[in-house]
């Protein structure tokens, strides 16, 4: 365990608190979002996207260097409509059902909702399943 990993652990704690306090871990907020009945979730994600986009533009402008002295380069994923629309839809079905995406799953596990003792290993199993059948899927 390096010092850097301790820093990631601390950022993770902050992330967990942010996920909880921003209410994006709320199953009810996700239901409300998919019913278009509140600005909340759109506001949270929208603000994060716009501010992050501005941040990345500033990174480029001022040649930002991370702790390792490197520019934080983004390697784009190759364009593949079929793969991303199918994968996104599968993910969305799960997100709508559980009201939690991967970050919130961990956070809710820590918050003491017992069902996430089942949800998290199931998600890992889902990733394993993908590894198992990926040769047969459109990529």
């Amino acid at each position, binding site marked *: *365990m390096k010092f*850097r990993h301790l820093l*990631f*652990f601390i*950022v*993770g*704690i*902050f992330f967990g*608190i*942010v*996920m909880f306090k*921003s*209410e994006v871990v709320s199953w*009810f*907020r996700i239901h*409300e979002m998919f*019913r278009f*009945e*509140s*600005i909340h*979730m759109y506001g*949270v994600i929208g*603000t*994060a*996207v716009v501010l*992050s*986009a501005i*941040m990345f533009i500033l990174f480029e402008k001022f040649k930002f260097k991370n702790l390792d002295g490197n520019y*934080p380069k*983004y390697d784009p994923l190759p*364009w593949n*409509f079929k793969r*991303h*629309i199918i*994968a996104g*839809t599968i*993910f*969305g*079905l*799960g*997100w*709508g059902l*559980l009201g939690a995406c*991967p*970050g919130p*799953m*961990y*956070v*809710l596990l*820590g918050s003491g909702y017992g069902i996430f003792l*089942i*949800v998290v290993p*199931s*998600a*890992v*199993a*889902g*990733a*394993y399943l993908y590894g198992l059948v990926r040769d047969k*899927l459109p990529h």
Partner: protein
Amino acid sequence: MTESTSWLDIISQPWSWYVSGAAITLVVFLNNWLGKRFGISGSYEVACSLLGAGKKISFFKRDLKGDIWIIAFVLGSILGGYIASQYLTSDQAVVISESTIAYLNELGIAYPDADTRGLGMVPDTIFNLSSPKGILLAVLGGLLVGFGSRYGRGCTSGHAINGLAHFQLPSLVTVIGFFIGGLLMVHFIFPWLNAL
């Protein structure tokens, strides 16, 4: 209200969406500063590798040394969830819209009572460890999220936030997929599953 309002009282209030969005951006910044991209679902792949999946499936073969950061991050977020739920809750449930409350009521899901802790976070009257149906739905949901996030190479953090902020078309398509799936689930499939 007490005479002195401590910082703990302030952060324990519900956060507005713009404060929340700014706080998430700070996490994106810290990840970049520490030399990694913002993304959570890669941790599932790492978990598979840790459990030895790389022996059978080459996709999971990886040098785990480069992945310790995400394990640390995930463990931190679990602790963060504990801290927030224990020490930083406000005294009322999440304030969702009246129309969502009325709709859920029609489904037989009372708000906020469906969350026995009264937080408005998880309807644990449905999703709990002593309900076989709840467990089945949890397994199904987990499998869908895990599978979809690896097939699409990212989840809400990696695509909806980091990818969109980099103006990535593959991320936009993935997010459109999130909505196709989410809308289908919430409007058609969940009401049916819930009534079973």
